[in-house]
């Protein structure tokens, strides 16, 4: 019972619960203000479905699971490869979000101060994106350690926990996607 | 010496306040009974088992629990809660869902930092900080229905002897009703912290006999008489920035940021209770509102004594 592994699991689960609660409130605010903007563009007018980014992010969950499994089987090079793919997919998702925001801000004139839609859209999607960045930093560290040879099979549990965080971030995206791009439009 | 006006929730004069008092007596009775029983058991236990034991070294019998007792003392409170809730729900709906008679008096109270704008939309009356209503009696009920709005931050409308409080929230419209059954003057004040002078956002509700209320309405609806000696002051009032914030019916003044001054002298206080409405206080207020109510949003207009005299001579005619 008194093992670092189980402690780490409990810690990450606790962390994920707290984060879920944090995201929950931003989702609630978004839903609450849906349709209540006094002026300005509506979601339907300006939002396109971010299909490519979503596909990249969701498949990165698969690749990170493959990485964790590979490391557990002591196949460090394979783990490094899948970590690399995960990071690339994550960066692709960030890139598509950045492109979308640029389009919204520059072309459509939607900022956080434009109306209630802008106020609730950017923080929700932005909070998620910041968590993607955090995840990419952690995955990048794992990747760097894999490349330098420092990553070993005994670290499999820790990489597994990082992958749990990554799965959570992807799960949040499923919710954000549904609320913002499906329900909200 | 001003008579004590204690706005006690246990001295209601209006139907919703009566209802709340009745409910509160029921609740207090139950709470008092629970307190006496539990405190009684506690005192008995502490005294009986706190006495110096004959054999202090031996441990007493270890009692781990009792399913029956524990069940009982869970179920009984649960039943009390059920009863309490049913009674509560009845009063909630009874007060909230009071139907509005078609001829009921309607008024709108608009909360500002830190004063109350009072409008009687159907009567064409606008005043500040003082509400006047007719008394109601069982034969001819005359409830008043109040719509509550705010132009800035959250306030709360509370006149304890007339009704429970209702918040006054920007971007939301709330409603409350009163039905005073006794002539008199009842006091209240803002009950939601709204900034610097929240403490000086007092309310006065004057309940008149029905015919006197009609007289009050007529006086408020009339424009104030033009007094020749006040002509200079009136022109000063119009030429200075006063009319940007204040309205006086019958003049170009139609500002909405400050209280309507048409019948300024008919009100008992200045600055929502900051000072009583006497010429001396009025002069001090106009000279520098912050001297009577620090941080008041009305600026001091930096008038010299001559201008103040003229202005005052005009303002005191606004009865």
């Amino acid at each position, binding site marked *: 019972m008194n093992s670092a592994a189980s402690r780490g699991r409990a810690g990450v689960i606790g962390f994920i619960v707290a984060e879920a*609660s944090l995201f929950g409130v931003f989702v609630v605010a978004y839903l609450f203000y849906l349709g209540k903007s006094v002026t300005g563009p509506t979601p339907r007018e300006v939002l396109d479905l971010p299909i490519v980014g979503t596909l990249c992010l969701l498949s990165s969950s698969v690749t990170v699971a493959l990485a964790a499994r590979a490391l557990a089987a002591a196949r460090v090079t394979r783990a490094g490869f899948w970590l690399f793919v995960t990071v690339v997919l994550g960066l692709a998702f960030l890139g598509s979000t950045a492109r979308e925001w640029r389009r919204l801000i520059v072309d459509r004139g939607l900022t956080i101060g434009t109306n209630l839609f802008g106020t609730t859209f950017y923080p929700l999607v932005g909070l998620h994106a910041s968590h993607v960045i955090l995840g990419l930093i952690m995955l990048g560290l794992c990747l760097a350690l894999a490349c330098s040879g420092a990553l070993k099979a005994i670290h499999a549990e820790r990489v597994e926990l990082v992958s749990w965080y990554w799965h959570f971030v992807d799960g949040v995206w499923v919710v954000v996607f549904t609320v913002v791009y499906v329900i909200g439009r | 010496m001003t008579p004590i006006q204690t706005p006690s929730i246990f001295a209601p004069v209006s139907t919703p306040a009566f209802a709340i008092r009745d409910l509160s007596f029921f609740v207090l009775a139950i709470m008092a009974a629970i307190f006496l029983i539990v405190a009684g058991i506690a005192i008995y236990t502490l005294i009986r088992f706190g006495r110096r034991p004959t054999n202090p070294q031996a441990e007493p019998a270890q009692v781990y*629990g009792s399913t029956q007792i524990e069940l009982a003392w869970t179920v009984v409170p649960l039943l009390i809660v059920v009863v309490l809730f049913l009674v509560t729900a009845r009063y909630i709906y009874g007060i909230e869902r009071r139907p509005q008679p078609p001829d009921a008096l309607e008024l709108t109270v608009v909360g500002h930092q830190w004063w109350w704008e009072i409008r009687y939309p159907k009567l064409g009356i606008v005043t500040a900080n003082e509400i006047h209503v007719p008394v109601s009696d069982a034969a001819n009920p005359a409830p008043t229905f109040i719509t509550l709005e705010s132009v800035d931050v959250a306030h709360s409308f509370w006149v304890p002897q007339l009704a429970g409080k209702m918040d006054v929230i920007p971007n939301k419209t709330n409603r409350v009703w009163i039905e005073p059954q006794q002539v008199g003057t009842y006091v209240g004040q803002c009950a939601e912290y709204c900034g610097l002078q929240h403490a000086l956002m007092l309310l006065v509700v004057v309940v008149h006999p029905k015919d006197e209320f009609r007289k009050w309405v007529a006086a408020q609806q009339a424009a104030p008489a033009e007094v020749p000696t006040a002509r200079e002051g009136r022109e000063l009032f119009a030429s200075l920035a006063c009319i940007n914030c204040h309205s006086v019916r019958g003049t170009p003044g139609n500002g909405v940021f400050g209280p309507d001054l048409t019948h300024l002298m008919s009100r008992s206080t200045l600055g929502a209770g900051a000072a009583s409405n006497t010429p001396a206080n009025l002069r001090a207020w106009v000279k520098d509102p912050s001297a009577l109510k620090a941080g008041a949003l009305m600026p001091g207009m930096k008038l010299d004594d001559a201008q103040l005299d003229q202005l005052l001579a005009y303002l005191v005619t606004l009865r």
Partner: protein
Amino acid sequence: MATAPVPAPLSTPHDIIEASSPSGLAATLHDWVVTVDHKRLGIMYVVTGLVFLVIGGVEAFLMRLQLAQSGLTLVPAETFNRLFTLHGTTMVFLVGIPIVFGFANYLVPLMIGARDLAFPRLNAFGFWILLFGGVLLYWSFVGGDGLYGAGSAPAVGWFAYAPLTERAFTPGNATDYWNLSVLVTGFGTIATAINLIATIATMRAPGMTLGRMPVYVWTVLTVSAMTLIILPPLSAAQIMLLLDRFLGAHYFDTQAGGSAIIWQHFFWFFGHPEVYILMVPGFGFVSEIIPVFSRKVIFGYVTLVAATVSIGAVAMSTWAHHMFTVGMGGTLNSFFAASTMLVAVPTGVKIFNWLGTLYGGKLRFRTPLLFCCAFLFQFLCAGLTGVMLAVAPFDWQLTDSYFVVAHFHFVLFGALIFTIFAALYYWFPKATGRMLSERVGRWVFWLLVVGFNVTFVTMHFPGVLGMPRRIYTYPADRGWDLLNLVTTLGVPLQALAVLIFVINVVYSLRHGAPAGDNPWEAWTLEWATTSPPPAYNFATVPPVTSRRPLWDAQHPDDPDWPHE
């Protein structure tokens, strides 16, 4: 029966290092600053909380002086508004949370037979970020006039209702000090909660099933789980407020269609469970202390634990009883009235469990038990006024008045602070190896009980007579003068009690009677090691055969485990 203390053998390299490291003020200070030991961090949390308690008390004292009579001008309006904002914020975030989690820090590993918390460095992070947040909040007094010359210490009330907190109504940086300091300390609290859950879930000694944990540990587990769920919403609302104030967002900007009500929902969804997070570990203290001073096992362990967990769960559904006057409508008003009344049931049940423990016992009226006795009566009052407030129409008169101020001071002072004093007297010997004076303890107790009740019983009445809260003065013709004066007169007694307590603590650290391992003849694991415990807590953890391992060891013919 207290056993002679056995000096801990120098068996590990860590001890040798400790014994041979340089002493002196600089070295001691360094040790405390870099520590990750849960016991030291726990003490640092509690001491920090007590320091802020004194500061918050001074703020209260100044307010009570100003309100002692109508129309006084001792404290101007602006200062008064800052005082009540800082007082509330300090007491909840810089006194309640640190002391509650500080005790949990100290006691949980000892009670479950563990070496430390699951993540010692995260633990240290939690403490230092709390201290930073507290300093940041108080820096607002010092830090200058803000951008628009509008003053620095926040004056928006501890729950900072919108849209008063929007830039349009409070320019300058005062509100931002409130926002950022509370936000930052919140992260530390979440980290500590994660730490405690991981510790309790995975580091219990062999034989200690969940059903054998002390009730106190159950209370810590419950409130830590609650923290994970309800503290992030406050952080989220504060981030939204930051966005409104700095990036032109409109979350709570009613001029742009935003809602003032949604701040209240977010805040109270945090705020109500928060006060249970503060109070429930206090219940845990009482559940440990009453049995020991009654010489009896706790009556009804299973129902007590079930009540604790159900309080935690139901409390999260009661928040809008703070909003009965907002105009939510009959359905919501009824729902929240119902849930609030419901949570009173398990809370009341606990009182009965404690009475059931005292009943039939051989009571030892030492200071810890005295404080628990006062707690019982005061918490009973607090709970009953709470049920009154749950009756929504009654609340329509009582809320935002001095009645509700009296109610929550009965909960957080009359109940919580009294249990904290009980805990301080009870565990001070364990943490320091020295006893606090019983004689001085009685003085502290009686001064506090009398002072507290003079102030806070009296305070109910102005509320019922129409006096709202958060006002820096009141008219002379309301009839509130005498009641306010009496309320103020109770304050010096409370201040004296705290002063005497502090002096006794400082004195006892050097000159208190040696405590030994188990001065109270208690039965939980923390009493099975030295006072103070060594850095590693236990040389060997005693076998855990029941909820009272030491009882089993002392009574091999009549152990607990057949009865559990």
